[in-house]
């Protein structure tokens, strides 16, 4: 549905977005990650046709956004950053206006507004003027505007920003549900959101795509991924460390918590595919030593760690030294 090729945007001499390429198909939810100022919003503005790219191309449903903007825009719903809306209008007036601009009239318009209101839980504030609403309601009003015409493509710039945990949960559920039938791109700072909602994630840093994969693929790039956390009752951490280090395929063992009652160590395999075999060896070791094991599990890796090491290479290295 969405094809982005070599997208580049220069503001003066500064490259805000530098050769970004990716594509999103129907049924996919693409998470757009990156530190502040990485070029996420600029990319989304180019995809939605708000600003023209310096070079490169965007096609939505086969329509080039620069050459043929109207049919491309028709397929898209867009929630801009900070969820702007006309403060002097009521929620109902605003949604009806958006529906009309989308070419919906009469009964079709009424149905579209009702559907969006229901999906975004706006019934209670329908006839209130937007300027009197709290941030969460304003946000949802703008979100409702983006789905008013049931678009095939949804571009959401930080859809959960400024919402309380319950609202965040509702919006995530909504995105996940809509993602089954639509192509969705959404940007966020919240990494747990990516894990719970996205089928694929892109990390963008200083205008470039630095990682592209499913959340579990990305997590595998974490140092922690494949490590085994091992918690044993009544054995000293040093003892644990010495004994586990002798097993084949162990690269290193780190003491996580040294507590006389329950010690925790983390064991890193020499290569990630050996992790499962290593976990079995650990189990056998525990049997031989008659240890009381409280916990033995393989770490999946953590997205925030991947995010940090990818987007902050300098400080990442310093941290390791």
């Amino acid at each position, binding site marked *: 549905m969405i094809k982005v090729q070599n997208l580049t*945007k220069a503001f003066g001499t500064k490259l805000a977005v530098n050769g970004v390429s990716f594509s999103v198909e129907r049924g996919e939810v693409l998470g757009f990650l990156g530190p502040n100022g990485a070029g996420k919003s600029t990319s989304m503005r180019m995809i939605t046709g*708000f*600003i023209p790219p310096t070079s490169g191309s965007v096609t939505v449903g086969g329509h080039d956004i620069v050459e043929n903007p*109207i049919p491309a*825009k028709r397929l898209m719903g867009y929630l*801009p950053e900070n969820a702007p*809306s006309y403060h002097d209008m009521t929620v109902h007036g605003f949604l009806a206006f958006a529906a009309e601009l989308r070419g919906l009239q009469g009964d079709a318009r009424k149905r579209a507004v009702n559907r969006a209101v229901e999906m975004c839980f706006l019934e209670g504030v329908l006839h209130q003027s937007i300027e009197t609403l709290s941030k969460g309601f304003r946000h949802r009003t703008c979100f409702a505007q983006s789905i008013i015409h049931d678009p095939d493509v949804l571009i959401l710039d930080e859809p959960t920003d400024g919402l309380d945990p319950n609202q965040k949960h509702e919006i995530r559920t909504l995105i996940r549900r809509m993602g089954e039938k639509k192509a969705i791109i959404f940007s966020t700072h919240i990494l747990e959101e990516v894990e719970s909602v996205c089928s694929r994630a892109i990390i963008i840093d200083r205008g470039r795509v630095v990682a592209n994969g499913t959340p579990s693929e990305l997590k595998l790039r974490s140092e922690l991924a494949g490590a085994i956390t091992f918690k044993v009752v009544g054995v000293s951490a040093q003892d644990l460390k010495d004994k586990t280090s002798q097993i084949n395929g162990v690269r290193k063992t780190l003491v996580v918590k040294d507590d006389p009652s329950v010690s925790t160590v983390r064991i890193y395999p020499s290569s990630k595919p050996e992790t499962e075999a290593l976990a079995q060896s650990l189990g056998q070791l525990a049997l031989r030593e008659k240890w009381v094991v409280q916990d033995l599990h393989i770490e999946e890796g953590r997205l925030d760690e991947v995010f940090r090491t990818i987007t902050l290479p300098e400080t990442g290295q310093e941290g390791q030294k």
Partner: protein
Amino acid sequence: MNSVSVIKTITKRELSGYFASPVAYVFIVIFLLLAGFFTFMAGGFFERNEASLMSFFLWHPWLYLFLVPAVGMRLWSEERRLGTMELLLTMPITPWQAIVGKFLASWLFLALALALTFPVWMTVSYLGSPDHGVVMTSYLGSLLLAGAYLAISCMTSAMTRNQVVSFILSVVLALFLILAGWPPVTKLLDQVSENPRLVETVAAFSVMTHFEGFQKGSLDLRDIVFFAAIIGFSLFTTSIIIRSHRAG
């Protein structure tokens, strides 16, 4: 969806935006009060002893000088400040439709304010028998004049997200269009310059020169074209300014 219905939708929204806030009511009241003051107090409506609305229309260029930018200053600067411009221009519409729709809404609003001055016309018809043709062309001229100022405000409001800056810029531009043909200025230019064509050329840019014809009851195509050209040029410039903002 065709152009006309897009423009209609935008115009409707913008117009209801005026009436959703006190802006519209404050503006109309002040406009009517000032128009009355200028006509009867400063314009010497009764002293003239004529059945004409000369003293009413005479002040319109000055009245509009401050009041029209007050209506137009928010048109685009507010969209930029709130970020709704991003919303509007990512809808399946062209920037032109948005520009024309917003312009038409404020022009309609000014037309409404102008129409509410009808008691002046009734008064003069009651007191004497004015030339209704002249009154009608004067109203048309006044409406075109307001449209020209408004298009200029539209342009300056696209330049900045600050309404005050937008207001001041458009007052200055409109003032220039008045002064270029204002008798004290043309006389001064006459004295300074040897070339009478210079004065003529400068005066030809003035709204005063072109508004005069309407007040005398003549519908000169050149005058209509002049105002239409200012509106067209300003709106075209607005579209260029908006495009350049988006291009970064």
